[in-house]
């Protein structure tokens, strides 16, 4: 099961400190794991939400640092792409996976798969026994849709102002965090529904 999907910055943001990451979209799947831990059972909903937000902030920070180290090591020049070149942007994107140890920040060990498209990172946190090949493919697919439907290669802020589109996309391609084995026909059927949603 996928625990969360995040879209966050992987470049330096002037308003934030070094190494910090700005979250543009975050979605946690399933019930809060805190209700099963002895430590967090007594928290009220407000505190629980705070803990959740802190958790995803930790993930975003760790991915940000992994992305910058990876880019530094490969010394690749980032290619600036413009709207319309989504396929190219995806091809040029660098990818990797971060091991999140148990407790840091989820109670169990997790694998955070990431895709770095220029200044933004798309991260999928899954349980390590999950099929990472499938997760990788799903992440690429989700990223492609986000880039296209939210015009993310441009200067707009649709990812903030149209987050409902990402929600709708996730409800089809990653319902409740479930990775799906979709061949091209099934995927087409779901993407048609997504496109219909976006059109309204």
């Amino acid at each position, binding site marked *: 099961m996928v625990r969360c999907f995040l879209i966050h910055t992987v470049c330096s943001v002037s308003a934030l400190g070094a190494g910090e990451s700005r979250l543009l979209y975050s979605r946690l799947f399933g019930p809060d794991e805190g209700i099963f831990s002895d430590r967090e059972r007594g928290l009220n909903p407000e505190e629980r*939400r705070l803990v959740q937000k802190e958790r995803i902030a930790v993930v975003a920070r760790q991915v940000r*640092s992994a992305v910058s180290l990876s880019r*530094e090591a490969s010394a690749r020049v980032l290619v600036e792409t413009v709207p319309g070149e989504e396929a190219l942007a995806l091809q040029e994107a660098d990818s990797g996976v971060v*091991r999140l140890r148990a407790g840091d920040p989820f109670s169990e060990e997790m694998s955070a798969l990431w895709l770095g498209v220029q200044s933004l990172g798309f991260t999928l946190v899954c349980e390590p026994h999950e099929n990472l090949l*499938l997760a990788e493919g799903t992440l690429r697919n989700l990223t492609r849709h986000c880039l296209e439907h939210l015009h993310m290669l441009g200067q707009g802020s649709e990812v903030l102002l149209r987050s*409902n589109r990402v929600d709708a996309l996730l409800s089809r391609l990653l319902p409740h965090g479930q990775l*799906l084995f979709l061949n091209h026909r099934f995927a087409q059927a779901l993407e048609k529904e997504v496109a219909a949603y976006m059109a309204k």
Partner: protein
Amino acid sequence: MYSHGAESLIKQAREIQESELQKFYSRLVKLLQGKELGHETIDSLQRLHLILSATKYTRTLPPELQKKVQSLLSSPKEHFQVLSSAVLRETLPLSGQEGNYNQENISQLNSHAAVLLLSQAGSRADLSSLCAQLLRSLESRQSEVPAHSLTHTLPILNTILTLSPECLTDDHVTLLNKKLVDWLRYASITQGGGASSGGFFTGPRSRQPVPTAELDGAVSGDFFTVLCVGQGFTEDQWMNVYSFSMLRHWLLTYHSVLSGNGTADTANRLQLSLSLSHSFSNDDRSEVDGSVVSIVSATSSSGRLLPPKERLREKSFQYCLRLIEQSDRKAHRKTDTDLQKACLVEAVCILDCVCEEDASLVFRAFPCIKALFGRLSSDLSFARVLLPIAQFYLNHGEMAAVDCESVWKLVFGRFPAELFNDHFLAHELLRFLRLNLKSLQHRVPQYTRSFPNLLKFLAWDSPAVVDDFVDLLPSLVTAGTAVELLHTLLDLPCLSATLVLQVRSTCLPISEPGGRGLQSPDAYRNPSFRGLFLFLLRGDAGSGDTIDRLSTLHELLAETADWPRVVQCAQTVPLLLHIFFNTVITGADEKLLSHLILVMLERSSLLLNIPEYNKEIQRVFSSHLLRFCKLHPSLVVDQSHELLEFAGATANVYSKEGIYTHVVWVLGEYLSVSCDSRCSVRLITSCFEALEAVLFEITSSVPPPGADCPAPRVVTTLMSALAKLASRSHDLIPRVSLFLSKLRTLTRGGSVAWCSDEEDLVAIVTRGEELWSLLKAPGVAQSVLTPPPHVTTPQWHRDTNVAMPLRLRALTSLTHSQ
């Protein structure tokens, strides 16, 4: 991509004033009261979501607004469902309305409302009732339930049982077992969505149902799976996809051997599954008109005799075998080829899982797995599929008496050597090693010898995998290979540089004009240096600890010292060395420890010249040298010759100050009869003379050109060491005292050539005076500078006088309640 516009939007959302916010709320309430909810409402709701989610502190909505938003959850327009769910998730539920989980109409909830319910669940009980409701809707006849809510049932259940498997009762589990069997094995094999084989002129009556197709276009000959395509899909075909997507997790959760309800007799199972009976059961939607039956179905065991759990196991088995068969077909599209790979991984994992539950299935599964391995082993693009196959071999190979050599050759040989730069493979392979450490150490002897290959993952991408190596390194330390491992760790940055050169030389043409003026690529291709690089790139340990021409290698790679990958690698080496030494010290014999000390002395200057690297390594060496000698003081006498040689070389004071200081300290501290009875007066005297000579030299002349003044610590350590040695052989005391008083007179004149800082000089002189006055009373000096063991390792609880008060204090604190 990330623009100032976005940044300022977030800022505005966080810093919105209360008054403005309240105005916004009332505007939104008005909008929601209207008859027609249009684009403006959607935009406003979206802005509300942004305001709520931009900050980690929760804002509460006015109750009126919240109620209105809540009512949108059941709106016919999906946009409102999505937005209201998103908004409500970012705020607190209204008091008194905390997710009523016992509603009758939960099954009518759309997916987005279900998301909200899940996120608001506060306890296991909430989730249990949600599960019960969902399953009730599954049980009821399908025509009553709208299409989409059925498909979302499985993902919702899956997410709940990830965290809390106890939410499903045994009856629920049985029900789902039955349902999963139906969906997986008996989904319709004709295309849905009204596809027909008729042409333009055929009327509705002549429309025949079209069978589904395989990915290469052929007509499907067997039951429906995720690798079958059609123009449209029926409800149960969708459920087939959703069922398979959660199958492995389901099997792992409820069918694991640990939760075993009664261990069935293996012999009986064996009989059942090997029997080739093929019966049709009446109440199943089984293949009544099954015309074309493939090999898989023909060898199925009788479905009716098995209880639901075992039936699901059997059907999962068949499904996986079919997937493996289907993955051999040449798909037309790349996304489908990728899906085939993912299906292979999943199928092998599920087979592994069911074979764990029922060992008799191993004999049926192995031929297939073996064939698959044979098919894929030469193609490195299938490396990630071969890992689950390796896991299968590891788990069941012994039982099936299958030879696993070729598997390990791949996993420990080709994969690290050729695919070290594949992040995902590295992650999965290292995870495989971590999870199976005990079995691997037990059953795969080449594991501990394969560290030169495994470390290539680390040399290439240190930040990503260092965490895994922190866990794995202790298992790679063996008495036989420890020295070689140490050398390999110290030369990891060289390996890193070599791998970069290797990758570059395969990517770039051989005759690239040395445009950037780099020397190293040429060196890499130069035949006379080939041996050096080949040693670094070796796959197995055992061919030698290190090479003679290390310094040549370091020179050749000197320009790589600022390459980012090399620098990142160098930063992880000290940590790994700590882990190495910590592992070695437990249970190592003195012989190995002495050998390691020698390596430390030798390598402290024989390292790739990366800034700070040398210093860091010396720091690690120093701390572990101290530990070794503290644990086994006799090591100092054992290695006295080499240690003295090191300490007697004045050049070391300037170039290896860190470790030099510690060597001197160790000599001073442990070269005594109380530590080792073999320590003779002659040994003490020769050590004394060696150190004395160095001390004379560094305090009487200017430092050699290019070197800084010796650190004050070196001088004081030398003085202390000499004093300690003198306290053990009193004839040496006059010599020390003479030197110390000379030092005092010399420095009274002000500054000296060998010490630039006045304060440091004062500290040195003060120490000299202390030692001099101490040595005036040799007996006292001896007990202070060479204390007997019972002083340095106090065990007060054993002392008859001191023990009593300690015991009383302990008893008192135990009996007193805090």
